[in-house]
């Protein structure tokens, strides 16, 4: 339409919209005028007045229809109709509180769950990463195909070679993680920290909040150190002091100049399972080409147009040169990951499973409401027949029904979105750290525009999904039949019955898939909880107390203070044993290459490695790790005595298959002293409950191993004493000995074990709730369909019973119909589940995705509840009194 045209039409539309009564009055007048004139004309032709009037009316073809057609030309009818339908719809909903509350509540739960999960999906998988050129940023790790390892940190030798000898990158930064202890004013503070190259922040495009980033001069080792604080630490420890920049603080016993403060909310950088959000960043990374320790991570930006594959190929060529010079690097190749992949790898499988699950719940909810609407629509057939006789078109009736279902949907949606923010908080409470770091908004429960947009789209889709089919079904103008039946409640058409049956079948199929998913997760968790950890996690308190500064430069001083601490903690009431270690089971891995005296020169790439754990004398007793052979450590294993080591069964088995490991020798590093194996300890799960068993070696604290010494204190309490109850007393003992030692990560071993399976726990809890909801909804669905069709068949059943059908037969007749539907649903569901559960293999442990026990079990549960749902209406059918039934209607 041309703008000029609008000049005429807009006022007309406005008039129709806002002066509707007047417009209608004029329409009435106009038609009446016509009728009068037409009648006069017929009379003038000699017709009797009554007949003339009838002819005039007939010519007009139904006054009300003609009026409706005229109104239709006004184009604003949609809006008026909508208001009218809304009014009517709301009145109907108020009149049916049962239907309304079930429908609204079901939708609210489904949309709430969907929106909550989508918030997480959005944050982790969709939200644009807040970096300049985020699509060209890559995270650089390395992998070793021969050893089956991936996502390993990289070495300085590799960083420098990859940076200088490839063409694909615009810039290449690196960092290493450690922990930094802040001393000085107040209590000592330990925070995770990173030593970074000066180009890291410019590369990421993150500007400091205050001050500056590091200069390339500060990258060198040996120059005065500088530190950049995180916003959190700056606020927490320094109260956001603006004058801090330029001053010096003591980090790890050394003076560092504070040069800057970073903005808050950098946590998305640390969503990979390999990082914790640092409290500060330290300069002086001092990368040296001959260093091959795997402690670093790379972040680089590809040149425009360069691809990951090209970069990867160039880096592999460089690596092939490097491994000839440095045998330690043999077999390692760069592993490039886009930022998105890196930050979402840990949580992606879980999120996809969950969003699929909530979509299923939503579909089931839609099917259920569609079913209820169909039943209601059949009951309103007469209403629609009368309305279409009065000139309402089918489209008009469909719109009215859609408005009604839209009203339900809207109410459910609003409650759902409100619910979603609560559910987000619940999700945050269940979520593993990796998810929280990738989706920091989750904890706040604030919905953002996109999430709300998603909810709105879901709402609209839902309205059509559950509203359209029933509306089309019900609005079919079958005026004549309807009016002939005049008030008798009609039998539903075979078409509508088939449709309702299809809905029930799909509900059951979807519910089965969800139940199988939930069942598999329950089995996984049961496996994980009952897995033999190799030690007894009950009644153990652990904490970390890193020693730093001049006082603890000497290994002897470090060992001494630990002896002190252990002795005074052991003296506490309720403590059964205490020891120290560097490294705890479950929490991770500190791999070291070693060689054995039997095979001192293995070919490059086949050098064995093992988790290197430094332990105090009573470690095995405290953790209750069984000793299979030989002896444990004791106080005689001191610096002057023979160098000793305890290995786990796996190491003994792989290094000396079929031989007695006791007395064998191994060493860590080429010029290190040989260590004699004096004992074999039981295997412990060192990398989490689902992490499997790896080679491990334990060395005694007393022989001052070359790494920094112990950090962890482990305390076993007697069975009647809760380990948490001793936290204060233990920390007090440490601070009584040295008030500057920071104490962090105070946790019980059981907590640590639970955290390691947090993701599986979250997925299990959510899937079980969703599956429970699905079970309830689908049972309700089959129940409503059956009780409706039984009610419809009251007469038929009455006739059957009057003709002598027994109650048992009637029961079988009704139950049989429902069981048929349930059986079909189960069969389809099992097929679908076999296909779909494969997608959750990543989340499962100790149970195959096609676990027969789970499939049979959940089918039985769903089958049983369906039969129950059929039985209730069937019982009612047998109670029908034939006399009453035949008189009925």
């Amino acid at each position, binding site marked *: 339409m041309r703008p*000029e*045209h609008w*000049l*005429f*039409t807009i006022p*007309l*539309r406005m008039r*129709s919209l806002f002066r509707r009564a007047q417009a209608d009055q*004029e329409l009435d*007048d*106009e*038609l009446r*005028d*016509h009728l*009068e*004139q*037409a009648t006069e004309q017929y009379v003038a032709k000699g017709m009797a007045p009554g007949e003339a009037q009838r002819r005039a009316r007939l*010519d*007009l*073809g*139904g006054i009300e*229809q*003609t009026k409706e*057609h*005229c109104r*239709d*030309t*006004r*184009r604003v009818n949609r809006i008026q109709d909508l208001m009218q339908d809304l009014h009517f719809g709301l009145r109907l909903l108020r009149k049916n509180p049962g239907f309304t509350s079930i429908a609204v509540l079901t939708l609210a739960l489904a949309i709430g769950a969907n929106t909550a999960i989508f918030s997480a999906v959005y944050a982790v998988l969709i939200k644009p990463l807040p970096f300049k050129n985020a699509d060209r940023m890559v995270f650089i790790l390395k992998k070793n195909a021969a050893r089956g390892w991936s996502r390993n940190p990289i070495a300085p030798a590799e960083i420098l070679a990859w940076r200088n000898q490839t063409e694909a990158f615009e810039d290449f930064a690196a960092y290493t993680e450690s922990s930094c202890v802040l001393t000085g004013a107040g209590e000592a503070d330990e925070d995770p920290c990173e030593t970074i190259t000066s180009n890291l922040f410019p590369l990421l495009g993150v500007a400091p909040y205050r001050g500056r980033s590091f200069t390339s001069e500060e990258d060198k080792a040996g120059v005065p150190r500088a530190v950049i604080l995180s916003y959190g630490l700056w606020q927490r420890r320094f109260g956001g002091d603006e004058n801090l920049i330029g001053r010096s603080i003591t980090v790890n016993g050394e003076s560092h100049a504070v040069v800057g403060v970073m903005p808050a909310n950098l946590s998305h950088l640390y969503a990979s399972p390999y990082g914790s959000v640092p409290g500060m960043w330290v300069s002086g990374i001092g990368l040296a080409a001959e260093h091959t320790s795997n402690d670093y991570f790379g972040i680089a930006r590809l040149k425009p147009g360069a691809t990951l594959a090209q970069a990867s190929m160039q880096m592999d060529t460089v690596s092939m040169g490097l491994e000839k010079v440095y045998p330690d690097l043999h077999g390692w190749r760069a592993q490039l990951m886009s930022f998105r992949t890196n930050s979402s790898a840990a949580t992606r499988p879980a999120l996809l499973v969950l969003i699929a699950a909530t979509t299923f719940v939503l579909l089931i909810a839609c099917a259920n409401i569609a079913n209820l609407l169909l039943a209601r629509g059949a009951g309103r057939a007469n209403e629609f027949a009368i309305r279409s006789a009065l000139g309402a078109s089918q489209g008009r009736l469909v719109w009215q029904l859609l408005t009604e279902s839209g009203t339900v949907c809207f109410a459910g949606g609003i409650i759902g979105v409100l619910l979603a923010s609560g559910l987000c908080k619940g999700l945050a409470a269940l979520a593993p750290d990796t998810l929280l770091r990738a989706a920091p908004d989750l904890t706040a429960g604030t919905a953002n525009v996109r999430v709300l947009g998603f909810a709105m789209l879901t709402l609209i889709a839902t309205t059509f999904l559950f509203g359209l089919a029933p509306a089309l079904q019900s609005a079919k103008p079958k005026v004549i039949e309807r009016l002939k039946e005049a008030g008798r409640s009609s039998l539903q058409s075979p078409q509508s019955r088939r449709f309702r049956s299809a809905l029930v079948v799909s509900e059951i199929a979807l519910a089965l898939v969800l139940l199988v998913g939930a069942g598999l997760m329950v089995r996984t968790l049961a496996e994980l909880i009952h897995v033999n950890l190799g030690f007894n996690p009950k009644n153990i308190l652990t904490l970390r107390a890193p020693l730093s500064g001049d006082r603890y430069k000497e290994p002897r001083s470090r060992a001494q203070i630990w002896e002190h601490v252990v002795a005074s903690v052991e003296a506490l009431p309720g403590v059964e044993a205490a020891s120290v270690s560097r490294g705890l089971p479950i929490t991770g891995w500190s791999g070291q290459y070693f060689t054995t005296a039997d095979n001192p020169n293995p070919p490059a790439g086949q050098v064995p490695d093992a988790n290197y754990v430094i332990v105090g004398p009573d470690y095995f007793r405290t953790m209750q790790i069984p000793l299979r052979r030989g002896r444990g450590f004791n106080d005689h294993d001191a610096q002057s005595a023979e160098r000793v080591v305890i290995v786990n069964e796996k190491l003994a088995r792989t290094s000396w298959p079929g031989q007695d490991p006791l007395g064998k020798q191994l060493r860590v590093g080429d010029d290190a002293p040989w260590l004699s194996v004096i004992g074999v300890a039981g295997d412990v799960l060192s990398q989490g409950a689902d992490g499997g068993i790896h080679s491990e070696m334990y060395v005694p604290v007393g022989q001052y191993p070359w790494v920094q010494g112990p950090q962890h204190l482990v305390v076993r309490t007697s069975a009647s004493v809760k380990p948490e109850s001793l936290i204060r007393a233990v920390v007090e003992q440490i601070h009584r000995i040295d008030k500057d030692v920071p104490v962090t990560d105070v946790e019980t071993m059981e907590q640590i074990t639970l955290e390691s399976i947090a993701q599986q726990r979250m997925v299990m809890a959510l899937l079980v709730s969703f599956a429970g909801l699905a079970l309830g909804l689908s049972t309700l669905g089959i129940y409503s369909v059956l009780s409706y069709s039984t009610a419809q068949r009251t007469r038929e059943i009455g006739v059957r019973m009057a003709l002598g059908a027994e109650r048992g037969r009637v029961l079988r007749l009704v139950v049989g119909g429902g069981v048929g539907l349930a059986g079909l649903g189960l069969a389809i569901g099992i097929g679908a589940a076999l296909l779909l559960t494969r997608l959750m293999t990543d989340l499962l442990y100790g149970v195959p995705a096609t676990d027969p026990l789970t499939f049979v079990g959940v089918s039985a549960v769903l089958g049983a509840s369906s039969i129950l749902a059929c039985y209730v209406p069937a019982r009612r059918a047998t109670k029908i009194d034939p006399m009453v039934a035949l008189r009925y209607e």
Partner: protein
Amino acid sequence: MSKPSDLVQGTLDMLLLKSLALEPMNGFAVSQRLKQVSGDVLQVSDGSLYPALHKLEQEGWITAEWKTSEHGRRAKYYSLTRLGRRQLEKEADNWARLSSAISRVIKIKEA
């Protein structure tokens, strides 16, 4: 909306516009005029006449006014607008082209 069966689709609009181009009229007069002029060939039912008039009004091609008729009764008189005149020219052109084309085809002599 029901369509007059004998009328080529879309020509009702043109007929109404043309009728109103001659003089402003009320709905009844329009229906009478169509019957008279076409010699009862064009049977436009009254039931489709009014929706069609209202549609033209909503399009802005005709405009309505309440006037008192010669018989002293108040009636709704429709008249053509400037836009409507232009529309009529357009449709009349189209019609002329179409009908002359069709008659040329019809007049082809059979071999």
